[in-house]
């Protein structure tokens, strides 16, 4: 599964740290977050934007995590049709 490419250690660490910070804020400021996110109406954009931010940061981290562990997609031998 592992190739000859350099593994994304730096990116994993950076995204991992940002991800930890985001989750720490989420859990440390639960009351404040619940207050605003549970308001509804125009505040509905808050959970949607939050979900996009978390998916980008944490998604990049998890992708790098598996790559660093050496778990990657199979590389097919056959070439795509022209």
């Amino acid at each position, binding site marked *: 599964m592992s190739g000859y490419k350099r593994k994304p250690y730096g990116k994993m660490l950076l995204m991992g740290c940002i991800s930890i910070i985001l989750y720490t804020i989420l*859990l440390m400021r639960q009351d404040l*977050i619940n207050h605003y996110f549970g308001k*509804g109406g125009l505040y509905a954009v808050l*959970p*949607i934007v939050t979900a996009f931010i*978390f998916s980008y940061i*944490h*998604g990049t981290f998890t*992708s790098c995590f598996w790559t660093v562990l050496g778990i990657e*997609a199979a590389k097919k031998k056959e070439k795509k049709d022209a």
Partner: protein
Amino acid sequence: MHEISVNFINLDTINIIYLFMIGFVGGLVSGFIGSGGAFVLTPGMMSLGVPGLVAVASNMCHKFPKALVGAIKRARYGQVDVKLGLIMGISAEAGMLYGAQIQENIKNSFGDAGSNLYISVSFVVILALVGSFVFLDAWKVYKSETIDEEEKPTRLACWVQSVNIPGTMVYFKSLRARVSVLFTIPLGFATGMLAATIAVGGFIGVPSMIYVLGAPSLMASATELVIAFVMGLGGSFKYALHGLVDIRLAMIILAGSLFGIQLGAMGTTYVKPFIIKVVMGLIMVIVLFSRVLMVPVYMSQLGLIPTIPEDMMNLLKNTSFVIMIVALATGAFIVLKSMWQGYRTATKGGM
């Protein structure tokens, strides 16, 4: 919009670990078959004391970012048909709104037990028909020793692809054919209706893309992630307008499911396509048994059959929940096992 006061539960470490783990397994299965996990996540959250609507809303809000990450990952492997996903996703959105309205009407007329009975009967009928069909098809492929051959469209799919309705034809790369959107729209609509009813639209979406439209299993399961993203985004916004999304629950589940979905997506590159059908069919059949157990409970609550004693009801409810977890765990086990076998074959063959 109205502000609804909802009780967001207190989260302790055990709850967080529990949600993370279910998220991981749900994500693993979703990354592989395009859907799944929601049928365990919603009752799983409710078992922590989360109100039903908040559980549904929070599940929805973790689903769309998860599906987005999974779809992007699988698009890199050339497995996603974005056009088909968007067309079916938009019609699924309409189906979901319609399905939610039906649910609301049933709830107003027959109460919670009536609504629950409707959900369980839908589960049983659809899973019995579609689940057994998918599973038997996978079994047939396995027995026929054609597992290495490219999948061929069914006779129904060939007919669908041969119908020409001017002004409605669209070329889909997953089908390698032009198909009328008059076929894809009802299928998307049904996917959305099922998502509104049992939370897993993919149990209709994926088999319909395979057997009715003629998409290969890998592309159907990957394209389902696009449908789930479109549906989940719209659904989350609808619930968020009413302040029903508990973002903490959604993001904790997302934390686990993003690990899982990456792994499940990578898993699809190591397995033979019929494994997708095996996992999906098996999960559907096991979940079917789980829901069958709940039918007498709701029938009893509605007075359609003699009252079932409280102890027996609790036993049926708990057994049903455990069977659902078994369904998800079985799916995850097959995904990991197939992935491991595929990896070993690939490394031995110098792939």
